[in-house]
């Protein structure tokens, strides 16, 4: 059993959990969302700040305030590492890659070039009950980014 458990709780995850990156809510931001995992009560408030880049909008900042388990906390931290500074289009592709990994029931080989520390979540995909934890902030980020972009368009 412990092997399985160790597959879930990889050191990378526990490190992010103990020392989350980019934590806290910061200004400026174009959109803020609040997402909840109804089953367990985990919550995240997440802000997105976009900026104009040469090839379209860029993720300038993602800031957050979150309560939840090690998986959801670590996943939020990894998310910010992966998307901050990237063009929105590229960040959305990373999002898609992470989503596919999580929904792959442990059958998908993670791509370290794209997901970096995110590959540590490969083990989570084998625990259906925890997939929601890992995806909470990723879904919040997608939602917030979409809002920030419509915001941008209507301006």
């Amino acid at each position, binding site marked *: 059993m412990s092997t399985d458990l160790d597959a879930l709780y990889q050191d990378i995850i526990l490190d992010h959990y103990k020392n989350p990156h980019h934590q806290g809510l910061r200004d400026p931001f174009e959109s803020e969302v609040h997402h*909840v995992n*109804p*089953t*367990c009560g985990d919550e995240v408030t997440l802000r997105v700040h976009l900026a104009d880049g040469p090839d379209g909008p860029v993720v300038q900042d993602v800031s957050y305030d979150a309560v939840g388990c090690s998986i959801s906390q670590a996943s939020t931290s990894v998310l910010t590492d992966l998307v901050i500074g990237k063009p929105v289009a590229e960040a959305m592709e990373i999002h898609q890659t992470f989503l596919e990994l999580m929904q792959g029931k442990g059958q998908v080989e993670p791509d370290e070039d794209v997901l970096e520390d995110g590959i540590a979540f490969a083990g989570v995909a084998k*625990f*259906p*009950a925890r997939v929601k934890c890992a995806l909470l902030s990723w879904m919040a980020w997608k939602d917030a980014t979409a809002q920030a972009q419509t915001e941008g368009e209507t301006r």
Partner: protein
Amino acid sequence: MEGLLPDLDVIRKDFPILERTLAGGQPLVYLDSANTSQKPQVVIDTMVDHLERHNANIARAMHQLGAESTEAYEAARDKVVAFLNAPSRNEVIFTKNATEALNLLARTIDLGPGDNVVITEMEHHSNIVSWQLACERSGAELRWFGLTDDGHLDLSNADQLVDERTKVVAFTWVSNMLGTINPVTDLVARAAAVGALSVIDASQAAPQLPVDVQAVGCDFLVFTGHKVTGPTGIGVLWGREELLNQLPPFHGGGEMIETVTMARSTYAKAPHRFEAGTPPIVEAVGLGAAVDYLGHIGLEAIHAHEQAITAYALEGLQSVPGLTVLGPLDAAQRGGAVSFELAGVHPHDIAQVLDSRGVAVRAGHHCAKPAHARFGVQASTRMSSYLYTTPAEIDALVEALHHTRRYFKVD
């Protein structure tokens, strides 16, 4: 006989109850399947396996049993999604039975004075009283399609009935009393033309016809587990996802929420929005096994079987002097429930004499009082077949009806 299921003997072996003998050693001739169907061993075994090895509450539980139970429950949803050819798994909601599914809609669809709801005179009470109560609460008007003498919907005044103030058109696909198969796509189109929601009661259709919600194009459709070889305690509401998410919540409780404070709550999206509390877990799992079982045999094949048996039954019944069949006389236009009258003997008494010979039929109004009233009948006797019914059982019924006439000295 053309159309019968090829492996009828093998299929019958799947249903343990068919081996029962009744009082006096009579073998069971079960012709009450429109009331409730019998259950194949695989449905019973699947439920037992769940209870003995995987039982746990779902969604909320983090442990292995919880994961297994959740997976079994959600897999059952996927099986129903496939059974209905639904475009999304979020559109299948597990209810207690068809009645709860219809009442859910009647309680949550917004109605007001000036609006109207159109039903038909051949509905089951569940698709009548639910809307009567909704109209009483809201001040909306209840209207209905009448019936022709040969047991079809009278569509002659359809354009007056379904008008721009119509909010809902709710109708049965197959009548549980007359057997009539209704022109569902036509009715759906009429509803859509005026912007009304269409609600199909497929309680009698789902057991015996291929049901494809995308082909039919309706907005909502319900059926009940115990008539499709599944257990009691489980029914299905299917609805278009965007419509479901526009409806207000039905019951408040566990699993239908997003967040709860004492002052106010927010709600999950469909399907969970409408599955408050611990759902019928083992029942959903049983239903999943049931629709798999039907799918394995094939709904087209079951339909052909029902039509062959019904044609044979219509012929046999009409050989009984004084017997009048209610509803269409052409098996191709109807489902496998045949209600009839026998001059000089009350349906209760018919059913009683039949029962003494092991033949189980239903007698009464079959929860369709208005349809009976339309034909000036207080009560009728109904035989209803299913995929396990044999021509020999129809022979036993017909012979028992001749006996009934002799017993009551009708000639």
